[in-house]
């Protein structure tokens, strides 16, 4: 119920105006989606604010790692793990309700999509007469004298990224939320 009021505040001024006439100091949006569900005594302002600020940054970093992967440090695995860590942060701050509010897809579907994408990319070169797992690259010339190098390995890395992210999220769901609810998976 607490989350409802939270969303109302976030959602609009119509209902919010009636309940709290002086809404100037209520946040227009909660820091995190489902943080209101968390037991009040366990909440930490510092953590919530940090999570709010750091979460998008970490996600961005994970994408950076994903794209850097082919020639520099990083790659799908590292990127996926870092993205997973971003969600770990939200889980730590606000528990499993936050996690399920933040991730609407089933984690295992992410893993499945990643696995399927990876194998398809591995098999795709055969259609062009190249051996399995062969890779190609092309360089795009963009205006203002810039170039972007694209390698087909990127698709493979995206698959790995999704797979690892799905696995981390599923771990959080089963070992974190599942254990908290006092039950195993299945």
């Amino acid at each position: 119920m607490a989350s409802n009021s939270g969303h109302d505040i976030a959602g609009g001024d119509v209902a919010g105006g009636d309940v709290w006439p002086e809404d100037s100091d209520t946040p227009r949006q909660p820091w995190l989606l489902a943080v209101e569900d968390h037991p009040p005594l366990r909440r930490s302002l510092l953590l919530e604010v940090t999570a709010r600020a750091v979460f998008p940054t970490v996600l961005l970093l994970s994408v950076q790692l994903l794209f850097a992967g082919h020639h520099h440090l990083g790659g799908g695995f590292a990127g996926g793990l870092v993205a997973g860590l971003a969600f770990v942060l939200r889980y730590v701050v606000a528990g499993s309700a936050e996690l399920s509010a933040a991730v609407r897809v089933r984690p295992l579907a992410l893993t499945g999509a990643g696995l399927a994408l990876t194998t398809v990319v591995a098999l795709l070169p055969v259609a062009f007469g190249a051996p399995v797992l062969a890779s190609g690259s092309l360089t795009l010339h963009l205006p203002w004298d810039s170039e972007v190098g694209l390698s087909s390995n990127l698709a493979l890395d995206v698959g790995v990224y999704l797979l690892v992210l799905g696995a981390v999220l599923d771990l959080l769901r089963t070992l974190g939320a599942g254990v908290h609810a006092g039950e195993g998976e299945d």
Partner: protein
Amino acid sequence: MPINITLVVVLGVLYGAGFYLLMQRSLMRVLLGIVLVGHGANLFLQAAGGPAGSPAKAGTAIGAVSDPLPQAMALTAIVITFAVTVLLLALAYRASVLLDDDEVQDDVEDRRIREAPESEDEPASVISLREEQR
């Protein structure tokens, strides 16, 4: 090839401590043992990547680049140990829920032999044997 004595000592400690923990009863200790030996094995892979054979990277002089193969192998091994560690953690959790402990049991045959002189009737199930031991 010169031998890095620090690495050898570290490897020895990791393997020794890890296998010692593997022999313990508690699944958590076993898990820690597996993590230790896993680290030892990965370190070993790195140590193996020196100039002993020619590195597998084609077309480069030995020593010009670090050997990429052990790193790739260690990464794979790390991923696998990671996955299995998580699985063991889940198993330990489930054991503690279902059995109230995470003790790894003796072989079934060992227990049957130990029980043999007393019990003439049919061998007891795993659970009831455990109860008797307490």
